[in-house]
């Protein structure tokens, strides 16, 4: 909103420095976004919050200035001669929808001459960013900018029966608004009608057929008060936003109706020949009375944390238009009609506080009255984040919404859909973080970053009909090399087992009884046979594997991408591993290697299971796998290393021998695995 310094000076004496004035307004809650000098005029660009329609005009700002600087406020003069003929002889106003229009004030001007406005008025409008049209239209705009109340001028002679009816539109009615568009109306819309047809969309925009034209001689001025909700709904439905609707939506001043109509009449003499008919039509079926509100002295001090002197309280409220009267514990004041935002004690406290100055309020720290509560799973989350970083994954954050196409590919069942999506690419709340990570990998590859490790801590979304779940999700994605080539080593491509180890390192921090990998139940955006479910005593906690190369190809990623999706809530529920000291062995371990001949198709997990529990067997792990001519058909050669460990007593050869035989026997009988000769 643009405010002219010279216009403010019509109502209040200003501090000399515009900078000081701007700073003072800002610190009272009327944020000055900029100060501009144009043709000797100082223009303030103000950002008025939506609760203060009363300040969206020059007089409203002048009232604030008067309160801040404690200076007298002079309202504009509204004296003018009236014709002997009375307004009632020339026009009639009826309110049918009093719930949406409690007051409608009309004045009639006869014998006007439509022409350009005088320079001084055109200049003010232009400096405020309003285009001058003709003297009568300009007059309504001028009063809007001055007093903040939207008014409308009808060509009286175009109104059938010179009659105004304020009513809801009928179902099949149409009208053409000033912007030339035909509007199909509904009973939800409040209209101003003449005897037969709607002539204005109430509080939003006038109609084309009754607008002021070069031929206009007689004018009906409307100054009414419309229900904010009704104006808002109509303006929204038609996608219209006008200076009038902007103010009515936020709540106009019921008493300003009379004042605005009179102010227009008062200015007519400077703009046009013509006369103002005697009196005004004031259709105001039910007098609106606002209640008075009490302000307790103790409550004021208790809320602000600072005591404001009584005389300051009274001065501030009075200058803002309140009339505080002393009571036993403070004051009581009626509420001025322009301040619909003030209706409670706390609202008065804000008024006093902001004009008194938040800057004068003390700075204190509240006493600590209770110990903080720990956040659930705080340590569990910190451990996951620290591990992921240690493993070399860069932490990213991605959008929670994905495209319909991705939702189909990466989800199962009905996803959570947005009713009003930002764009086609963001219509569904993601059921999986996989697409987020894959798009990020693709983004990096597009910029030549071919070795990427990314992880995202976030949520995935499911549910519907009022009930939703947002489980915590960790997704890890890697592509390119696990190790870049360097002076000491060759490069090594990132593979399934790299990601598997990373996931195991993470899971190892939590208190699971066991962690096993198998190739069942993996979603089809992974490559079958190169992906796994990770199961624990708390069920499946993760999926890890290579991403379907076709999906990668569509994203222009032409290198293997590995992805892990981890259900963090299950890790957190398991809790962190609780280490417990075990005495250190006093003798070294014994190691033995076995070269086994294993039938194809027997996975290592089965071999490990087959040997069962063996006394003192500390480790049993694969060292080398070999397939080739030297290995009999249908088999592979597997070198495993067994390690025995006892705490205090060295092993005798016979003991190890016996243990080894038992292991080999189990493998032979259960899995037909033999020693390679």
């Amino acid at each position, binding site marked *: 909103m643009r405010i002219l310094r010279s216009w403010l000076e019509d109502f209040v004496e200003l501090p000399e420095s515009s900078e000081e004035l701007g700073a003072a307004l800002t610190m009272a809650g009327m944020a000055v976004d*900029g100060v501009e000098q144009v043709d000797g005029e100082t223009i303030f660009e103000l950002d008025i919050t939506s609760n203060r329609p009363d300040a969206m005009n020059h007089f409203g700002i002048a009232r604030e200035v008067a309160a801040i600087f404690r200076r007298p406020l002079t309202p504009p003069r509204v004296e003018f001669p009236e014709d002997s003929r009375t307004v009632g002889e020339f026009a009639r106003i009826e309110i049918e929808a009093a719930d949406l229009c409690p007051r409608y004030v009309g004045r009639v001007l006869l014998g006007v001459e439509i022409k350009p406005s005088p320079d001084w008025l055109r200049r003010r409008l232009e400096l405020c960013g309003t285009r001058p049209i003709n003297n009568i239209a300009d007059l309504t705009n001028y009063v809007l900018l001055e007093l903040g109340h939207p008014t409308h001028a009808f060509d009286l002679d175009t109104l059938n029966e010179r009659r105004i009816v304020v009513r809801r539109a009928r179902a099949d009615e149409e009208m053409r608004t000033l912007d030339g568009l035909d509007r199909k109306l509904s009973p939800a819309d409040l209209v101003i009608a003449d005897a037969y047809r709607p002539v204005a969309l109430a509080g939003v925009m006038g109609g084309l057929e009754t607008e002021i034209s070069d031929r206009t001689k007689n004018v009906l001025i409307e100054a009414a008060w419309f229900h904010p909700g009704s104006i808002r709904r109509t303006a929204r439905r038609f996608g219209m936003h006008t200076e009038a609707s902007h103010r009515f939506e936020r709540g106009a001043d019921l008493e300003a109706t009379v004042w605005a109509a009179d102010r227009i009449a008062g200015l007519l003499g400077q703009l046009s020949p013509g006369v103002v008919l005697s009196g005004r039509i004031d259709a105001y079926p039910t007098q609106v009375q606002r209640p008075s509100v009490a302000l307790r002295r103790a409550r004021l001090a208790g809320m602000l944390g600072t005591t404001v002197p009584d005389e300051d309280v009274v001065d501030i409220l009075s200058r803002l238009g309140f009339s505080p009267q002393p009571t036993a514990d403070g004051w009581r004041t009626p509420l001025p009609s322009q301040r619909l935002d003030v209706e409670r004690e706390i609202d008065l406290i804000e008024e006093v506080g902001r004009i008194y100055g938040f800057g004068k309020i003390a700075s204190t720290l509240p006493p600590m009255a209770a110990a903080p509560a720990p956040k659930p799973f705080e340590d569990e989350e910190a451990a996951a984040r620290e591990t992921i970083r240690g493993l070399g994954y860069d932490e990213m954050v991605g959008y929670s919404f994905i495209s319909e196409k991705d939702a189909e590919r990466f989800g199962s069942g009905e996803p959570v859909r947005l009713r009003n999506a930002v764009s086609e690419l963001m219509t569904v709340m993601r059921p999986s973080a996989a697409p987020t990570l894959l798009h990020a990998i693709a983004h990096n590859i597009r910029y030549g970053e071919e070795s990427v490790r990314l992880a995202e801590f976030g949520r995935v979304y499911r549910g519907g009909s009022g009930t939703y779940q947002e489980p915590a999700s960790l997704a890890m994605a890697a592509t390119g090399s696990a190790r870049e080539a360097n002076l000491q080593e060759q490069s090594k491509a990132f593979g399934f087992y790299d990601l598997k180890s990373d996931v195991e390192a993470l899971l190892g921090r939590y208190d699971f009884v066991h962690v096993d990998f198998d190739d069942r139940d993996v979603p089809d955006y992974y490559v079958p046979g190169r992906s796994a479910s990770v199961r624990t005593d708390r069920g499946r906690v993760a999926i890890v594997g290579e991403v379907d190369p076709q999906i990668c190809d569509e994203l222009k990623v032409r290198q293997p991408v590995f992805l892990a999706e981890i259900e963090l809530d299950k890790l957190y529920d398991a809790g962190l591993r609780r280490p417990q000291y075990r005495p250190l062995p006093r003798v070294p371990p014994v190691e033995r290697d076995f070269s086994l001949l294993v039938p194809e198709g027997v996975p290592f997990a089965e071999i490990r299971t087959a040997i069962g529990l063996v006394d003192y067997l500390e480790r049993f792990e694969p060292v080398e796998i070999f397939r080739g001519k030297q290995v009999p058909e249908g088999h592979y050669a597997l070198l495993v290393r067994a390690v025995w460990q006892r705490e205090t007593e060295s092993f005798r050869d016979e003991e190890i021998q016996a243990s080894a035989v038992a292991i080999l026997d189990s493998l032979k009988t259960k899995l037909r695995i033999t020693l390679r000769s």
Partner: protein
Amino acid sequence: MTLDEKAHQPLAELIAAGDSVDSLYSALKDAFEGERTAVSSADDLKALRDRWMGRKNGLIAAANDAWLKAAPRELKPQVGKRQNEIRQAIEAALEQAQNDVAALGRKREALDVTLPGPERRLGAKHPVRRTLEEILSIFRELGYSVAEGPEIESFFYNFEALNFPADHPAVDEMDTLFVEDKMLLRTHTSPNQIRIMEKTPPPMRYVVHGKVYRNDAPDATHSPMFQQLEVFCVDENITLADLKGTLEHFVRRFFGRGIKTRLRPSFFPFTEPSAELDITCVFCAGRGCRICKQTGFIELLGCGMIDPNVLRSAGLDPEKYQGFAAGFGLDRIAMNKYDINDISLLYNGDTRFLRQFR
């Protein structure tokens, strides 16, 4: 027959074949001396030691078994003496060789220590996360608890309970994304004020953070998803002065002592009085620039005293309890702190960007 073979032959057979005790031990000694001079590394030395002094298969152990233990009674003293001499000589020589090798270890080819080793990459912490953690630790020092709360939220918690009149432009200004008629993506973290106050008896002080959503097309300064942090404190006598003091403390700890603040009246439906906290413009140090519109200040956060209607909808008596709340965009603070000019960088997973925050 090689010396190794001889070491495993019974002494009597060797003598019968023409060897003598002296010649046998001299040959052993010569062989050892020869091999010892060839030692030039710790590995060589270990091999030499194993070959000669190995407990089971070493040559000296073999000679002990085949020669000494099997010696005819009359030769035993002589063999025993020679066996003992050679063992001591070899042990001494090995000891000396150990020292030589260790000394040698310091004289190997020098490395170019300026060459890089293989890269060990630690993952980066996202700049918003960094900012968040810093802020959380400041409020934890002041005794605040931390919570998050749901992102898919009801109209009630997001608006109604926070004193947004159903038919008010403020609801429009939030540009809400809906998933159902009365369910939406939270537009701010404030619904958690209600959720927490409903469950927690005062006094309470909380920090709530998380993702929030607005129907904004993404560009350099807008993002349909961003991250917010909100602090609130409720007790019987919490005042605007407490709000001011708390925020000033936070700003000093986070931005440094040189930063000035000002509390400026504003409007939010869920606070009354409402204010915005401005801080010295970090881009021009308060001298005035394009970004701060020449004011020397930039807007940091919105705050105020919790509106009595909000306390009431959370089941608290506003005549008894008062509180303050303050909320801000973590993204904006991170962008200020790290001089990031494009919000989309925070959400596209570009590792060239993320790695700057290792």
